[in-house]
């Protein structure tokens, strides 16, 4: 069942007199930015609480804090989100203020000028964090430079005018779907009465959800190296095509990835525990949404051990299904996953599961049904899934390190690898 307009997802938490209420303007996220205005959705979010005709930014901030509230707006690829957290006793007053800001936000020019300066500075600051740069480069490559995959764009931010923000937010406010999620000590009925204040009379002729951008197809082994000549450590993140959110093979894949790349997984054991070549080594899944997910691996070898780790990781990626260390781990995952069911009973997890069910069609399973899906994962089914999915010939290989040195290592491993050098500044251009 798809998410309906003004739907509420709710869990009660009687432990403390606090309410968290999140407004999700669905389909009003980064996907709606024009190509020449990268950063506009984020700018609109950051500008939302920076003034109305009646209240300055300082006055709004002070009013919220006097009520014990934290209120922020942020964006994802698909959504514009306003998150409220406050003492329950002040919920009505806080909501009243949020309602008035959403209705009357004035996006003052001088605040936009300050925000643009800050955003540009933050983009430049992000380049000094190796892990963030690696992750941003991976996104940049996978989304083929599309707006949603960009860490940001200095040029895009600088070109944003106040009129752009005003127009963008007017369509956010009237997004075709607004839904809510809440954890509170209040009852569902009490929260519904509160969310009604956002829903009453709201127009819904603004942004409508677009399809998510798909990841690029990778043919062959394509390497992208973020050139970092003075790095003391190398880092790599490799990914390949994964599966859809409702693909029946997702249980097999979860167990395989856990056996391969968790804290006690095969890769960590081989590369870190036995060889001491790196600090971290793991496999992961980029979760599927309405977009096909990806399967990935990460490691951070030292400058001295990169030449050993890179070819070994390529080898392990090819041969891991036959290795005893992996097979033993896979066999043990049945108990692991059944035991982990308890975490699915956490309040936040339950809330997120219901949203995922309605957005992507991922069913919520009771313990018994879940256990039987785990039991259905066998050595034979897992091997079939590995054969079908794992593909060491078509890898998107992103590196952070000295480009020349990494290229030499890659040439020795596999001369067919095509490599592209990325300057860090490209990621925020």
């Amino acid at each position: 069942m798809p998410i309906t307009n003004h739907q509420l997802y709710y869990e009660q938490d009687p432990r403390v007199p606090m309410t968290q209420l999140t407004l999700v303007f669905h389909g009003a996220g980064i996907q709606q930015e024009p190509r020449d205005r990268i950063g506009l959705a984020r700018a609109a979010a950051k500008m939302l609480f920076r003034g109305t005709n009646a209240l300055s930014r300082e006055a709004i901030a002070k009013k919220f804090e006097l009520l014990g509230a934290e209120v922020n707006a942020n964006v994802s690829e698909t959504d514009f989100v306003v998150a409220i957290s406050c003492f329950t006793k002040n919920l009505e007053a806080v909501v009243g203020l949020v309602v008035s800001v959403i209705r009357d936000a004035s996006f003052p020019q001088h605040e936009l000028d300050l925000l643009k300066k800050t955003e540009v500075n933050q983009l430049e600051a992000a380049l000094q964090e190796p892990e963030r740069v690696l992750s941003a480069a991976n996104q940049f490559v996978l989304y083929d430079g599309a707006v949603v995959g960009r860490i940001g764009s200095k040029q895009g931010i600088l070109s944003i005018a106040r009129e752009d923000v005003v127009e963008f937010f007017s369509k956010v406010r009237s997004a075709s779907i607004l839904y809510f999620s809440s954890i509170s000590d209040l009852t569902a009925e009490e929260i519904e009465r509160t969310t009604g204040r956002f829903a009453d009379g709201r127009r819904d002729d603004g942004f409508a959800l677009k399809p998510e951008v798909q990841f690029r197809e990778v043919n062959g082994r394509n390497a992208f190296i973020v050139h970092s000549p003075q790095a003391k450590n190398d880092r790599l993140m490799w990914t390949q095509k994964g599966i859809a959110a409702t693909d029946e093979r997702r249980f097999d894949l979860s167990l395989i990835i856990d056996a391969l790349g968790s804290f006690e997984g095969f890769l960590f054991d081989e590369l870190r525990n036995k060889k001491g070549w790196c600090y971290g080594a793991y496999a992961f899944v980029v979760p599927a949404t309405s977009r096909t997910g990806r399967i990935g691996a990460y490691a951070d070898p030292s400058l001295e051990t990169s030449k050993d780790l890179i070819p070994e990781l390529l080898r392990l990626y090819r041969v891991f299904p036959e290795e005893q260390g992996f097979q033993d781990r896979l066999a043990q995952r049945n108990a692991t996953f059944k035991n982990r069911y308890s975490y699915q009973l956490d309040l936040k997890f339950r809330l997120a599961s219901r949203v995922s069910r309605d957005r992507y069609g991922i069913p919520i399973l009771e313990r018994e049904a879940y256990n039987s899906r785990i039991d259905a994962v066998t050595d034979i089914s897992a091997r079939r899934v590995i054969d079908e999915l794992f593909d060491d010939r078509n890898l998107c290989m992103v590196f952070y390190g000295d480009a020349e040195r990494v290229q030499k290592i890659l040439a020795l491993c596999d001369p067919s690898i095509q490599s592209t050098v990325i300057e860090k500044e490209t990621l925020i251009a």
Partner: protein
Amino acid sequence: MSSPFTFHRLEDIPLLGSLAINQYRLENGLLAAIVVDRTTPIFTYQTWFNVGSADEPAGRQGLAHLFEHMMFRKTATRGMGEFERIVNNNGGTGINAYTSRDQTVYFFTFPNDKVYLAADLESDRMSNLVVDSEMFQTEKGAVLTEKNRGLDDPNRLLWETVYSLAYTVHNYRYSTIGEIASIENFTVSEAQTFYSRNYSPNNSLIIVVGDVDPEAVIQTIEEKYGSLKPSIVDKRAVTSEPVQRESREAAITHPKATRRMLAKAWHIPNMLHPDYPALAAAGKLLTSGKSAVLNERLLNTAKATEVFADAYLSRDVGTFELFVQCADGESFESIEDIFFSAVRELAEGTIGDDQMQIVKNHLQRDLYRAVTSPAQLARLLGDSFILTGDLSYQINAMKRIEDVRAIDIQRVVKQYLLDGKAATVKLIPEKEA
């Protein structure tokens, strides 16, 4: 018939609402703190050792951290990798550890029916760890990689330099991970001695928070830890630091830095000192929330991209710290002028009722946030115990925030930040240097 158990039940400590700490002590000195929260059928299990990098001899920095890595290796009863395998098979998550100045902490979370297993695993590696030469060498390789990862981080260099300036005698001046030479030179024998002296029941604390039955938990702890022998723990060699009578300053560069960064640290007393609540409140006034004084003057004016000011409390002499990541074109001098002008206004002007209410609201929120996260609550209790000897010290301080007066905040701001001397480090991007 007398009870087969010899643990002592100490007085319960109320936390918030129905939450309370059930405290127990075993004959061998081990302290256990158990908090029941049945919201989710899981529990977090943390083991705190009262030893950190500040307890290491001068020149041998990094052993506590390297040893933390060894605890994930093998024991006399469990082979290499078995610990993690058992944790994982039984649904354990969040398995990890960290070493800081004053403590070393191991933690994981399990489904609620795995208490016996958790106690068995932790008591085993607390008493039966095997440290052999080959594994020790392999783990050094991983730690050296971790060290190098840190060297890529300008922030890390900045703070390591701050502490090396702020402390002249105390071991807080050294980095927790140690230096490359010291890591390479540690011996198996040193590690074994470190283990037998420090990883003992009388030097540790077990914290369990979650969906558990306290009586059953303490009986399990008694069974698994009760036979462990206490050790004679070396007292920390240096516990004080001479009063800093002069300003100290350093300018550094880093090849990865793209922004100027400023860090300052002033000595403050430890958490037991009566000034602690006022110092904590001063930190909130300066940088907690969008309307906080420094956020308003530095972030909201686009002069900086990141700012924080807070009390970093340690068991011995702590520091009140300022960090600013400057926006392009902003000089250190102008940032410092803005900071001192704001601090002077706080100390010499009026702190309004509104400002005090906002500070209290922030602390109240911190308290609520902590008690609704088992892992966060356990950490708050553990930190309090290591730094003050009282599990509930920080929570009680948060609850007593109403007692903090504006005049107290003004006094500590003047005494420690205006009249005190700071260690200042200015990090300049290499391309500007």
